[in-house]
């Protein structure tokens, strides 16, 4: 999905010159913010213990990004491109089935 939206931009930002700026910084393509992968900021990520997950969707609801994907079968996982590792899902999880795990070097 990220690749698709990256291609929707006229040009990568770092190659765009001042002459190519749209009037007043206007954006004509919707959804361009998707090209910015905030998942790069992450220092930890959520891990679900499926045996304790009741598939209530609270994690999906509270994710501020949103970067939690519902999988087939009703379980949830993070979207690595957009999860910032904030830990809101782990904090709010009803059964405590989400653990925040530090990123590996």
């Amino acid at each position, binding site marked *: 999905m990220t690749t698709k939206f990256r291609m929707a931009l006229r040009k990568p*930002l*770092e190659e*765009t*010159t*001042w*002459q*190519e*700026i749209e*009037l*007043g*910084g*206007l*954006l*004509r393509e*919707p959804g*361009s*913010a998707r090209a*910015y992968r905030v998942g790069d900021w992450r220092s930890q990520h959520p891990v679900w213990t499926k045996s304790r997950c009741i598939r209530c969707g609270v994690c999906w609801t509270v994710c501020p990004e949103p970067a939690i994907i519902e999988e087939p079968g009703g379980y949830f996982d993070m979207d690595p491109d957009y999860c910032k590792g904030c830990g809101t899902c782990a904090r709010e999880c009803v059964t405590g089935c989400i653990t925040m795990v530090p990123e590996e070097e």
Partner: protein
Amino acid sequence: MAKKTAAAKRVGMEVSIAVSYAVQLARAEAIAAYPITPQTHIVEHLSSLVANGELDAEFVNVESEHSAISTCIGMSAAGARTYTATSSQGLALMNEILYIVSAMRFPIVMTVANRALSAPLSIWNDHSDIMGARDIGWIQVFVENGQEAFDHSVMAFKIAENHEVLLPIIVNLDGFILSHVVEALEMVDQATVDKFLPPYVPLHRLDPRNPVTMGAFALPEIYTEVKMNHQVTLTKSYDHILKVWDEWGKLTGRQYHPVERYRTEDAKILLLIMGSLAEVAEIAVDEMRDQGLPVGLLKLRMWRPFPFKDLRDAVNGAELLIVCDRALSLGGVGGPVMSEVRSALYPMAQKPATLGYIIGLGGRDVNPGNIKDIVARAQQEASQGPQEEFHLYGVRG
């Protein structure tokens, strides 16, 4: 004055009312404003014109200047020809939005009736309000009398709305000294203005059939490029401003220049002033010329974009340049106009000694005798070498 159009009529009118008629003649479609002394009469009269059906515009009453300019953004974004006016604390309250108007390229026209900033509370005239908004990225001009206030209020729309420009513009006029004075003015009729100023055609606007994102977030990779785009557009607007001024000059016989000159031929001493005090300085220059002093006067009309070449040409041959500021840059080099003028002249091989005198703060009266006194003091200072960075002229103690 060259030939006058047949339509030109000379009428006695308060300058604020004349400005509101200029906005009416320009067929402004959207106005949001909050009353503040000494700008009040402008928007008060516009509000009457709208209420009486004499101007077909949306007049939005708001609770603050921050809301006034924000509302103007919305109306301009919707594609309307948009106008507002403010002064002093009102301009200061607009501050954060002013940068957004220009960066998002909304051609809003605003009159600023220049007034001192608090504290202490002062409703009287100086330029400290607009100098606090120096770097907002708008086109900025200063006028010296009611006729200029009227003319520039009409021309502003044509400059701002040019598709090569699309920048907001502030017409600065001195509070009370101009805003509340009745002058004999040559108005221009509706047919002439309609021919001069076609309806506004927005290049981009809010349109559900063609949605766009305005005012988006910019990453460090692109912010500098956006600023450069704005910088170049504002600098290049110079050419379009001159084209509009020339066209108005042909239409009315009143020709305007970025740096106006008064009796500058063979002048060794030049005064530089912005706004209405230039007329006081004219009287002083006449008297000094009568006494054989080679003194002339420059009036800086175009403040943004800064007219570097015009200024350098205008001071060529002068030995002493006395810049009279109407604002104080506290703890800094003195007056903002003086510091910019001195910077602009710095690369010249042969340049006049530039001295700064700050006058007329918070409505302090300045008469022709004061101007002559400043010239005498500056001459003495120039011969002895500057003693101070600047002078706060007339201060007691």
